[in-house]
């Protein structure tokens, strides 16, 4: 592996460019490089691992029991990549993926304050997941963070929230995060579980598969450990963060009764959803997944998107977890090698067979978790009018409902024009899913019918200075000079 710290040191062209150095991107890069292809692995974080294996090579957390055995598996992925000739660019933001004249792609990259365009014949997007937005009144107060953010700070800096800490939401990760933070010494005064009780009715049909899944033993252990040690409160139906300059407490409703729990940190988590901004802006087709309640790029058995030459591996193409992400990265890389003529179809199929078997095993039981931890309606589409939905432009749920009903706005793009929601620097990452749910609710239609924001490159803000300094291509010159 060759680590690149300066954008000028990148080659003009690579056989494969992979975006994201989490489990999917690391395995895809390793596999492609092992097959003799020239590989660029670009990642905006300072070190490899993605979020699940965040800071695996640099973490100050040395007691292995704090983060659990699964975390330490990430080291093997990086060790494998290190043995290859792949080029790894940390701190490198990919802001655009577009077709080029040669039938390949042109990537817009930014590293160290300088932008550059680099060509790649095949693309694998491994941009992973983000936590689902969890808009409640007061969630913009300093001191309110995602539970995953606290986990990132623990993994990368060995820090835990210092005062009374409340963790709230639903999903298997909630228990894992609560357990890790507690093991690291955080003072968790309440775990507020918002899982709707009636989810069990829907989930029970998928239970037999879950019984044979790798999640079962792990999940049961997590649950019993967390429940035994931590102050659990289930059946939470409403939450609001309180405070003026920072969070000082959380108002909780359960069983019709409301109480306020004083806290210095409030950590929110409501499952994870694919990060779709880059794949969407690149033009890859996506569909609304009614079970996981999120937008997901459409991919085939080889994780190829609707655009030939762009594959989407890992949680960015649908949530499956770290183990399945790594396997999906391998499969996507094998197919990219086939497209590049490095492998025949038969060779690709043969190499992929054992990986496919592992992938099926790793995904067994997933449906049960998706059904059981489906967020309650009240947290997908916040009922309190004052709840900020678009954090960047400070647009509230009340404004969105009002504009949808009074002005007859039927989709998020039109809403953007009226209210500016989704037009801030996060480009809809924190409001998109909620805006769609609110509009769908007002008009009594599904989110699938409501649609999603039309995203455009650059998918991360880049300065005009960086753009202006890009050397003009022959094509660009011809486009303006006749």
């Amino acid at each position: 592996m060759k680590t690149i710290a300066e954008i000028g040191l990148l080659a003009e062209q690579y056989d494969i460019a992979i975006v994201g150095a989490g489990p999917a991107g690391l395995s895809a890069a390793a596999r492609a490089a092992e097959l003799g292809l020239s590989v660029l692995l670009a990642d905006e974080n300072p070190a490899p691992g993605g979020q699940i294996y965040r800071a695996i090579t640099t973490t100050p957390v040395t007691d292995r029991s704090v983060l659990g055995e699964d975390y330490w598996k990430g080291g093997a992925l990086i060790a494998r990549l290190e043995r290859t000739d792949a080029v790894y660019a940390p701190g490198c933001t990919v802001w655009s993926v577009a077709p080029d004249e040669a039938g390949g792609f042109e990537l817009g990259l930014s590293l160290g304050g300088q932008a550059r365009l680099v060509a790649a014949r095949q693309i694998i997007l491994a941009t992973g997941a983000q936590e689902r937005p969890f808009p409640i009144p007061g969630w913009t107060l300093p001191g309110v963070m995602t539970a995953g953010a606290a986990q990132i700070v623990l993994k990368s800096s060995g820090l835990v929230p210092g005062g009374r800490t409340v963790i709230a939401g639903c999903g298997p990760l909630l228990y894992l995060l609560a357990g890790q933070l507690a093991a690291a010494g955080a003072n968790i005064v309440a775990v507020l579980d918002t899982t709707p009780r009636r989810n069990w009715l829907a989930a029970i049909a998928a239970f037999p598969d879950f019984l044979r899944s790798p999640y079962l033993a792990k999940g049961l252990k997590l649950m019993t450990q967390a429940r035994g040690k931590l102050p659990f409160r289930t059946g939470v139906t409403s939450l609001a963060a309180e405070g003026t300059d920072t969070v000082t407490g959380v108002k909780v409703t359960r069983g019709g009764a409301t109480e306020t729990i004083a806290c210095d940190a409030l950590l929110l988590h409501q499952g994870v959803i694919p990060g779709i901004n880059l794949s969407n802006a690149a033009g890859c087709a996506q569909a609304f997944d009614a079970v996981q309640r999120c937008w997901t790029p459409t991919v085939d058995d080889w994780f190829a998107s609707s655009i030939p030459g762009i594959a989407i591996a890992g949680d960015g193409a649908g949530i499956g977890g770290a183990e399945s992400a790594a396997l999906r990265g391998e499969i996507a890389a094998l197919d990219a090698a086939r497209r590049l003529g490095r492998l025949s179809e038969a060779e690709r199929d043969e190499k992929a067979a054992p990986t496919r078997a592992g992938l099926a095993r790793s995904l067994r039981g997933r449906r049960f978790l998706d059904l059981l931890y489906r967020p309650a309606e009240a947290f997908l589409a916040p009922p309190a009018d004052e709840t900020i939905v678009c954090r960047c432009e400070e647009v509230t749920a009340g404004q969105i409902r009002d504009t949808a009903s009074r002005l007859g706005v039927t989709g998020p793009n039109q809403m953007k024009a009226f209210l500016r929601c989704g037009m801030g620097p996060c480009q809809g990452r924190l409001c998109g899913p909620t805006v769609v749910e609110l509009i769908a609710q007002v008009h009594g239609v599904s989110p699938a019918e409501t649609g999603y924001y039309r995203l455009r490159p650059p998918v991360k803000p880049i300065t005009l200075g960086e753009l202006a300094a890009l050397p003009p291509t022959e094509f660009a010159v011809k486009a303006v000079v006749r």
Partner: protein
Amino acid sequence: MFRPIAEAKASDGTRVAPVGFTFDGRAMTARAGDTVAAALLANGVQACRQTPVSGAPRGPYCMMGVCFECLVVIDGIGNRQGCLVPLRDGMRIQTQAGRRQPDEVQS
């Protein structure tokens, strides 16, 4: 407010010297290898920007480059995502007040 976990604290002496930086002129130190946003959290800084719309205080929210709540001015350059920038010795970090100002670069 964040604090180092017990084991990280115990082995501090054997690790590289802490990195010095300033936040709004106040001298602070943090662990080498921290991001700017983590370094601020470790120093008890909860809010690092005021929004351009209402001026409300905001602090780091996602710590993974998605939310843009940890925007700060670093060495005179605004709109930097603190959670993606590794801390360096002598960095001048400032609260991002509202939108990025074009004359920040000269300041």
